[in-house]
């Protein structure tokens, strides 16, 4: 005989999971008891939302699903923001929640919450387990659904008595058979032919790369395609890292907070090849305008993205890797015109500018750019949300590493827990979390997790005593009425010290760089507080 909880552990082991993030409670206790006996490493976070963000960061750096656990009721509802974040950024996360005993469901008992109902808009799929014997099938399906097609979070809600119940045996299914779930991986041959015809007849083609290029693992194929054809590449916020920042063909991030020359290219181009991007409002403010002036080839694994935000000339539904292979096979010796190639290179040179220095403050954009080269080339930078995110997006010089942020949901407090997950997935890489003084305080308690597990991440806090991005909006649109955006900051170094984490506060780039140098040499976590001029703009 085997208990439901033991089955859950065996399922995780069968999926090759060695690290999980969580926070226990009464309704998930049987699972935690089984976890105690297993070899799976459990990282106790300080709040359930962080468990999901950490699993998110872990997943993005390990190419596996991240796993997080919470108890019923408030444990589960605390997860919702994390789940919504993973959903809007299409990150595969498995969320396991405890639930009250089956016979008590629906009676509003202690710590009961209808979490499958509450999470409905934010999950790719969810399960409320009614029969212990269904556990292996449900886990198999959940991992399959989370990590295939357009990836996303899957929630498994397990009543306490299901975890306790003994059943005859455990057998993990080898295959999944879900009638209503058959993602389309192969791009339609005819559509690929049409796309190439369109490309050959265009004058100024441009690739717009999104997060889908990274999650499908087709980054190198895209680079090859761009190099072979000369087509320039711009990326969305989620797509940063599809190409090294210094690559001749790469023009940076598009959008309201993007690079000038990226947006210029977007507007001048007559053919957009949109790869794994949904073109949300922050990327393209007026999608109808774009589709009026240029033709669009839209490649995405999710058919619902085609035509949702922009009108598409040639849609290709399929896995980016396959489609890129098909395009490379059929492209022949096509190359963009000399004229287009020289035009965009010229923009890139002409529009580059060095940010001005504010005396007595750290210039964050210059610092991020410097940090990029102080980190090892495969370093991972996790940006939070707000001005710090834009400073990082536009100035992190990515080489072979990763840039993680939440572009879809824009959840403040993402960077520190996600960086914890990233570091545990890639222990040999440099991991830096950059946040503002607002976002740092949203999940400040994770310093406890960092301390307890000695997780070597470097936290850079851009401190301006302001909620900078909203402040900027208020000064541009709301007549400088800074409503609710002034922070009264504590002495952050004392907080870090209280957790036994090395720390320093700096007010110039020279100081910051000097400390960063020693910081990267040590194998210990570090909190670097950088005082930034309040008027520093986002771009």
């Amino acid at each position: 005989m085997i208990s439901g909880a033991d089955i859950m552990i065996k399922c995780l082991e069968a999926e090759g999971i060695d690290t999980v993030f969580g926070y226990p409670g009464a309704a998930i206790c049987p699972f935690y008891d089984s976890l105690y006996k297993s070899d799976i490493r459990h990282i106790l976070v300080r709040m359930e939302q962080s468990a999901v963000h950490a699993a998110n960061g872990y997943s993005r750096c390990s190419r596996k699903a991240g796993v997080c656990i919470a108890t019923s009721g408030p444990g589960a509802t605390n997860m919702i923001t994390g789940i919504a974040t993973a959903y809007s950024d299409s990150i595969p996360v498995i969320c396991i929640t405890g639930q009250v005993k089956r016979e008590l469901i629906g009676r509003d008992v202690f710590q009961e919450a209808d979490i499958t109902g509450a999470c409905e808009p934010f999950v790719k799929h969810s399960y409320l387990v009614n029969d212990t014997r269904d556990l292996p099938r449900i886990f198999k399906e959940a991992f399959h659904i989370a990590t295939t097609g357009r990836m996303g979070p899957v929630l498994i809600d397990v009543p306490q008595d299901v975890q306790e119940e003994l059943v005859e045996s455990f057998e993990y299914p080898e295959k999944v058979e879900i009638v209503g779930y058959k993602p389309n991986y192969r791009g339609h041959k005819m559509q690929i032919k049409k796309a190439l015809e369109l490309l050959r007849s265009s004058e100024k083609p441009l690739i717009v790369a999104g997060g889908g290029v990274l999650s499908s693992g087709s980054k190198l194929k895209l680079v090859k395609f761009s190099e072979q054809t000369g087509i320039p590449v711009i990326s969305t916020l989620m797509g940063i890292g599809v190409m090294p920042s210094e690559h001749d063909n790469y023009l940076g991030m598009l959008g309201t907070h993007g690079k000038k020359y990226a947006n210029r290219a977007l507007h001048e181009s007559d053919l957009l090849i949109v790869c794994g991007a949904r073109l949300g409002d922050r990327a393209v403010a007026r999608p109808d305008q774009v589709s009026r002036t240029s033709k669009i080839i839209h490649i995405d694994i999710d058919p619902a993205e085609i035509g949702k935000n922009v009108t598409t000339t040639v849609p290709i539904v399929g896995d980016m890797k396959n489609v890129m292979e098909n395009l490379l096979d059929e492209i022949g010796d096509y190359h963009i015109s000399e004229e287009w190639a020289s035009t965009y290179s010229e923009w890139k040179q002409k529009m580059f500018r060095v940010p001005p220095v504010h005396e007595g403050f750290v210039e964050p954009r210059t610092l991020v750019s410097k940090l990029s080269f102080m980190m090892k080339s495969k370093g991972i930078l996790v940006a939070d949300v707000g001005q710090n995110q834009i400073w990082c997006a536009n100035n992190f010089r990515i080489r072979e590493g990763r840039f993680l942020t939440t572009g879809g949901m824009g959840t403040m407090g993402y960077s520190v827990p996600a960086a914890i997950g990233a570091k545990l997935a890639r222990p040999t890489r440099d991991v830096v979390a950059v946040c503002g003084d607002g976002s740092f305080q949203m999940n400040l308690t994770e310093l406890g997790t960092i301390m307890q597990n000695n997780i070597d991440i470097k936290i850079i806090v851009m401190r301006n005593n302001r909620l900078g991005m909203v402040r900027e909006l208020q000064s541009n649109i709301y007549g400088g009425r800074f409503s609710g955006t002034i922070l009264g900051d504590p002495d952050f170094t004392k907080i870090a010290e209280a957790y036994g984490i090395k720390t320093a506060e700096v007010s110039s780039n020279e100081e910051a760089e000097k400390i960063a140098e020693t910081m990267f040499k040590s194998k210990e976590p570090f909190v670097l507080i950088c005082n930034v001029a309040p008027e520093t703009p986002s771009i």
Partner: protein
Amino acid sequence: MKYTLSVIVENHSGVLSKISGLFSRRSFNIDSLAVGVTSNPAFSRITIVADGDEHVVEQLEKQLNKLIPVIKVKRLVEGEYVSRELALVKVQSTPRRRGELMQIADLMSAKIVDITPSTFTFEIADTNERLQTLFDLLKPYGIKEIVRTGTVAIEKGQGEAYHSGFND
């Protein structure tokens, strides 16, 4: 423009809330929705009548298809399907008006399912337009209550939205 979608879903609890939740959070306007089990008890069929332009209905189809318990979504083509809706209509009546009301029932092929000294209840199963005609005819008598099922539809001839495999 009205569209009729025939949607086959897994027949278990929670599926309907997934679907109705989708409508509200993506601001789709639904005229009616009717659910019933198919010839295979593992599946249910949901018939949806939606209002919107081509773009809206295409998104609705795609978003429905993304839900894992949704097996198949089929948009029915105008003129190639038969649709019916059932309504029960209760009207005010006096003994003197019984004759007129019975005539209306006869004209509209509606059944009279309940009579009291002060009320008359009609049952009609017909197209949406015919139902509306009956309501218009009864309005002058004073309609107390209308209960409707929402439209159900089936394709004409050999066409089938989903082969349920019941006879396999």
